[in-house]
């Protein structure tokens, strides 16, 4: 701004010297610009003079001075940088071939060292490719696959009963112990734990190992770069063993299906059993009650009859005998009577 106002003023006073002034101003401006450099918040700079690095790296954002022309400024990022590794084929301790893709965060902590040993982020990527892929391979080879995949033993502590009841029915009264739970993690080995309760294996341990290994290797190179973090972005079976995995999954799923069906049948049979018990109880209770009532009735009837008949048992016997004749004598009966029978008297007449 100032420069341009100056030009205007000079031009206004004397046109003849304008050319010279303009050239002078341009020259001063050019030199001035070369003596200044602006640094963004996310940047840091090293000042280089004839190939030598002068002073400490500049990390403060804003406008800075340098010696014009003699000193050059090399600007680097000071943010977390991203390294995205290529897919690596790795073999675990239990000889499983897996494809791993890790990614890392790195940061230029010492721009001076970085300028001297690496020079550019692109070169850093190449260096990290070598270091981290090696670290990944070495570290994963020390563990079985399940130790790379899992982070804890929660799969072993999984409440299978809870899972099954939530799958089948909320109010189900199911004995989940009957189910084969291999797929639910029952057969997977536990991650080893040391005396302090720290896991000796598992994904976080593997990642920490890779990070440590990577940091150690990086430290030896003296690049001024710090590894912040390692993440496993992808981790898959190689296509060669996928088919086996599918076969295993199919078998396990079929086992669980069969388990569900048998639980269903078990519960159904249980229900039917309850029903039969209920029916038997209801029916027998009814029979009991009914028989009691009938018994009481009979007893009372006996008393009533006895009361009456006891008043003249002989007459009762007589009446009852006559009644018996009525029912026992029929067409095919031969009647034998004595001559003193009143009936004989009747027949004689």
């Amino acid at each position, binding site marked *: 701004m100032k420069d341009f106002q100056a030009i*205007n003023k000079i031009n206004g006073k004397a*046109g003849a010297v304008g050319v010279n002034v*303009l050239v002078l101003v341009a020259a001063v401006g050019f030199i001035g610009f070369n003596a200044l450099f*602006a*640094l*963004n*918040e*996310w940047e840091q700079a090293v000042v280089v003079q004839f190939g030598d690095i002068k002073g400490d790296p500049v990390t*403060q954002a*804003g*406008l800075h001075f340098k010696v014009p022309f003699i000193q050059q400024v090399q600007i680097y*990022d000071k943010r*977390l940088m*991203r390294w*995205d590794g290529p897919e690596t084929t790795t073999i675990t301790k239990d000889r499983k071939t*897996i494809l791993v893709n890790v*990614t890392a965060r790195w940061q230029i902590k010492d721009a001076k060292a970085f300028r001297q040993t690496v020079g550019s982020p692109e070169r850093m990527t190449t260096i990290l490719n070598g270091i981290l892929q090696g670290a990944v391979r070495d570290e994963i080879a020390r563990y079985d696959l399940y130790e790379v995949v*899992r982070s804890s033993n929660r*799969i072993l502590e*999984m409440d299978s009963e809870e899972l099954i009841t*939530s*799958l089948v029915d909320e109010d189900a009264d199911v004995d989940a112990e009957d189910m084969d739970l291999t*797929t*639910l993690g029952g057969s*997977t080995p536990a991650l080893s734990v040391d005396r302090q309760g720290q896991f000796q294996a598992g*994904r976080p341990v593997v990642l920490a190992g890779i990070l440590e290994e990577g940091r150690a290797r990086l430290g030896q190179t003296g690049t001024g770069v710090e590894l912040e*973090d390692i*993440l*496993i*972005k*992808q981790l*898959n079976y190689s296509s060669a063993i996928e*088919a086996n*995995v*599918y076969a295993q*999954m199919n078998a396990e*799923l079929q086992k*669980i299906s069969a388990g569900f069906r048998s639980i269903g*049948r078990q*519960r159904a049979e*249980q*229900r039917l059993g309850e029903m039969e018990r209920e*029916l038997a109880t209801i*029916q027998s209770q009814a029979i009991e*009650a*009914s028989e009691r*009532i009938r018994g009481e*009735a*009979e007893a*009372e*009837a006996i008393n009533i*009859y006895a009361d*009456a008949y006891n008043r003249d048992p002989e*007459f009762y016997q007589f009446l009852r005998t006559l009644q018996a004749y009525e029912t026992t004598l029929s067409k*095919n009966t*031969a009647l*034998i009577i*004595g001559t003193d029978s*009143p009936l004989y008297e*009747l027949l004689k007449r």
Partner: protein
Amino acid sequence: MQIEVEGKVIEVPIKTFATILVAALVVLSAFTLFYQVAPEEEGLVLRFGRHVKTAEPGLHFKLPFGIDRVIKVPTRILAVESFGYRDNRTGTPVSAYREENSMLTGDLNMVLVGWDVQFSRVNPKDFIFNVQDPINTLRDISQSVMREVTGDRASILILTVGRSEIQQQVRERLQRQCDQFRMGIHINEVNLLFVDPPGAVVDAFNDLNKAEQDAVRFFEEASKQYQERVPRAKGEAQRVILEAEGFRQRRMNVARGESQRFVDMMTAYKQSPDVTRKRLYLETMERQLPGIKEVVVVDEALQGVLPLMNVRGGAL
């Protein structure tokens, strides 16, 4: 003004040149003096690269000629990143993102998971100043966390009941990692869009669902039978009892009736027993005799009836 007055003197080409230059600068500075921040944005104002203030939405003044620069960050926009699939405008099949959606589970099986992450850039300063490539870093973390979470769970659980718990776990860990990197990102939501078994085990998995339904159906059929038969049995039981009560009623009534009849007869009989006795006997026999096949009269003096019986037997 001075410049414009002298600008009329055409013989001095240098002055004309200067005038045009200055005019151009004025116009240019007017354009670079103002900037606008949209309603969904915040503007980071950098003076010679140094952050001096953060501008809210609206029209603002700044120093021209690149002294002040403004980086606008859409802080209020809810951004979405998809994993294991893409918004299907291009028609790319999900299988094209196999590497993203294929997960190894804790029981060393495989599941396919597609999810999205909804986030906002809540802290524009952190978002721009701390991480070089925040969006791709977020993508790295998201994939890593999802693999970690699914890698610690059983496939059957992930495929069935574990979804909401997984979403929550991934969201929490994702946020924690973003905070660790000071990325200025807030994770609003993690949505599992699909959790599928691999193609080769789809049939077995579907059969698993069917097996669950079968299990429920078996039980419900039994329950239905229970519901039908138990109340009916209760009704029948009541009927049996009521019938018994009916029986009692009848038995009482009959007993009382017959007793009374006997008592009445007895009372009358006692007044003239011999005649009545004979009459009753004869009347009964009279009724019965026509139906009897033969009547054998035996002399009281004879001992037994057997010989006669034998003769009859032989005749037949």
